[in-house]
């Protein structure tokens, strides 16, 4: 936020983003410009979990961060939030890890079918008990 910045904000042009402003990086830099994951359709609530510990040749720091995060199962949306990268970028990185066999995926019900009656009742009971 501009209001929280310590110094006065220069009023001319883009020069204000010096090193104090943090990295100004095009988000798809970390994927080498790739915008399409090598794996298909990672839903926001597809869970991903690391199946192997860090490989010596893990491609990038971002891949390593994701591997560390997914030592326990997490949904794709949460991985993106915690590594603070856009979803599309995280999908590409996760695709790399999946195809390298470093991460496994658990997909939610894949269609528009609604959950069964037992599941819905369990949700209702669970919500009431909160």
């Amino acid at each position: 936020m501009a209001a929280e910045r310590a110094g006065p904000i220069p009023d001319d042009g883009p020069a204000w983003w010096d090193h104090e402003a943090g990295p100004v990086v095009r988000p798809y830099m970390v994927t080498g410009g790739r915008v399409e994951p090598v794996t298909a359709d990672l839903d926001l609530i597809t869970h991903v979990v690391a199946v192997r510990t860090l490989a010596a040749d893990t491609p990038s720091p971002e891949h390593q961060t994701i591997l560390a995060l997914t030592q326990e199962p997490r949904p794709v949306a949460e991985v993106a939030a915690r590594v603070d990268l856009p979803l599309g970028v995280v999908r590409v990185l996760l695709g790399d890890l999946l195809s390298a066999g470093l991460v496994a995926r658990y997909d939610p019900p894949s269609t528009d079918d609604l959950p069964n009656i037992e599941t819905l009742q369990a949700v209702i009971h669970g919500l009431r008990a909160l």
Partner: protein
Amino acid sequence: MDSVRSDAAPPQALKILVAGGFGAGKTTMVGAVSEISPLRTEEVLTTAGMDTDDTTGVQDKLTTTVAMDFGRITISPNLVLYLFGTPGQNRFWFLWDELATGALGAVVLADTRRLADSFAAIDYFEQRGTPFVVAVNCFDSEQSYTDSQVREALDLDAYVPVLLCDARDRDSVKHVLITLVEHVLVKVRANAMAG
């Protein structure tokens, strides 16, 4: 397929969408019931990617970021609910398609001062066949409409639940979610009878 550690199987995940106009209280609602502070995930959008017939030059591409806030409710060790606050603007509909796929249902959070802001979401879920309820967020008890007046103003089908709520209040939001899941249950039961 990938080999999987047997002890790492995650719970079944369900998602519920919280839609509504800007400032309707979506993130507040998610935060009121989430067991974690709402997390924010972002997607980068380029206008050029939204229109395949786009003939404008590279210099005209606009990049913007859409934020979605989400929270989590653990129902049981093997069942987890995720609540996604969805960007309200029409121009993000393509993102809604992804969000709505596999969703259990949606809460359309309406602000009576700007009821028209919820038209887009209502239209979208009606057309898509996603079960939804309309929750009217009452800011500081300044509610001057009844739920039936809201129903009429929004031209809702009789079977769509409409209820008043306080998006800041955990019990109130719980009630909204229970109403939604009960509404879904009615639909699933009806489908089972018909099938």
